[in-house]
């Protein structure tokens, strides 16, 4: 591991813009990012009720292209990217031979022989290296355009209303987990109907030199719809309510996809070898050793990452994420627990400082938008 102080912090093209908007900036995944512009709870509610604008320039964009790009990704990842039709996207993971998760990803099929793999900021370099290695022997090349690509997201029930007048992409025809090349405010880019908030919304990939112009075009439209810029603080509470995992909290090298409740992502029926297959087949056969569950805290206190979970005198697991849910008004959490304690309505106890606070296992997501 390199010492954090040796690693330069990347600025997004918008770092100064965020500062001028009053944002509090923090280091996240090697990038200087806005955590909040004002109140996190207000930003959260704005996305649930109207629309928000996010700078996600920290995410990693890895392009894999060539006649064997599909088979190469099928061998490198747990999902089956060749099965995606052109213009569609799929949630995926890259695992180690042990089945441990290196990162969770979204794979977009841009063309017959062209894919975009989007990795988390903090893992982008590791995923880039691992993919480069795993492409060896395939007629496919990796082009890491993380630093050359800007990414903004428009998320919330009014996202279509905000974006439609600004783009030549037919948003009505763009399904969830689909993407199309087009223009937004005259700027060429890739418009994807993906997100990390539990709301309808879009992610727009552009050349990094255009990020500022795109932001300046989108922000007035977002504001006119009663929206505002949204920081990583609300992004975290939004994804938590939506039951979506965060790498470093729910997912890591010691966790396999089945434990995280994401076994459906692992395509064991696909042809050929892929990294992690043997280990993951075993987990699929034997069942995971622990399971990710949703918890609603029923006593007083907020469960946080790392807090132990108990059932009587048995320590059964640990909290991975927790917060006060702005939408539900109660403390919510995710935790890994023993499979026997993972059924909905099981009552467990969370150790919060010196106290044991009761919590109930619930099915996730905590929040599901009305469709």
């Amino acid at each position, binding site marked *: 591991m390199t010492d954090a102080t040796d690693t330069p912090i990347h600025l997004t093209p918008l770092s100064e813009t965020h500062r001028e908007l009053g944002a509090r900036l923090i280091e996240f995944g090697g990038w200087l990012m806005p*955590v*909040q512009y004002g*109140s*996190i*709870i*207000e930003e959260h509610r704005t996305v649930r009720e109207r629309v928000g604008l996010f700078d996600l320039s920290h995410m990693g964009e890895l392009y894999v292209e060539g006649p064997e790009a599909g088979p190469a990704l099928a061998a490198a990842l747990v999902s089956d990217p060749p099965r995606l039709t052109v213009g569609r996207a799929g949630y995926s993971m890259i695992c180690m031979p042990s089945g441990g998760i290196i990162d969770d990803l979204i794979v977009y099929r841009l063309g017959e022989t062209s894919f975009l793999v989007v990795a988390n900021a903090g893992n982008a370099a590791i995923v880039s290296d691992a993919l480069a290695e795993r492409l060896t022997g395939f007629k496919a090349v990796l082009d890491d355009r993380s630093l050359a690509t800007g990414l903004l997201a428009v998320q919330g029930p009014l996202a279509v209303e905000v974006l439609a007048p600004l783009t030549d992409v037919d948003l009505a025809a763009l399904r969830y987990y689909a993407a199309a090349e087009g223009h937004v405010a005259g700027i060429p880019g890739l418009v994807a109907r993906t997100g990390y908030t539990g709301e309808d919304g879009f992610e727009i990939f552009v050349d990094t030199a255009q990020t500022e112009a795109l932001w300046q075009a989108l922000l007035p439209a977002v504001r006119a719809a009663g929206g505002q810029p949204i920081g990583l*603080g609300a992004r*975290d*509470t939004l994804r938590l309510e939506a039951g979506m995992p965060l790498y470093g909290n729910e997912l890591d090298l010691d966790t396999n996809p089945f434990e995280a409740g994401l076994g459906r992502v692992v395509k064991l029926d696909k042809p050929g070898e892929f990294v992690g297959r043997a280990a993951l087949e075993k987990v699929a056969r034997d069942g995971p050793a622990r399971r990710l569950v949703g918890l609603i805290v029923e006593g*007083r*206190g*907020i469960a*946080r990452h790392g807090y132990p979970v108990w059932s009587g005198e048995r320590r059964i697991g640990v909290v991975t994420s927790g*917060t*006060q849910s*702005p939408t539900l008004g109660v*403390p919510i959490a995710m935790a890994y627990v023993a499979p026997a304690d993972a059924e909905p309505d099981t009552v467990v106890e969370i150790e919060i*400082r010196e106290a044991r606070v009761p919590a109930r296992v619930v099915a996730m997501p905590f929040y599901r938008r009305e469709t």
Partner: protein
Amino acid sequence: MVPTDLRYTKDHEWVRVDGESATIGITAYAADQLGDIVFVELPEAGRTLEQFATFGVVESVKAVSDLFTPVSGEVTEANPDLAASPELVNSDPYKGGWMIRVRLADPTQVDDLLDAAAYDALVVAG
């Protein structure tokens, strides 16, 4: 400028002295730094606190922080409104967002705390 009738700690708590009674809370600067406060855990009446000891915790959306008492004394009351309305700490930190009252064990401790001008200087210096 922060209220001039209060004394302050470097940890951003304030204390208002009224005879033998001291009311304690956190400053507007502290509340703003924490962000939206969603939970406050306070001691029950009767507990004895030593100066600068932890008396509770305040939780924002993002993080949990300890609370330190500026003075020694016995807790006589904890703000009952904060259980249902922890956001009072953000919106009204010096009045409605007060946290505990203590019976002062040693009134001279107050003299060693920061006055408003000194606390302001501390915040400006970051």
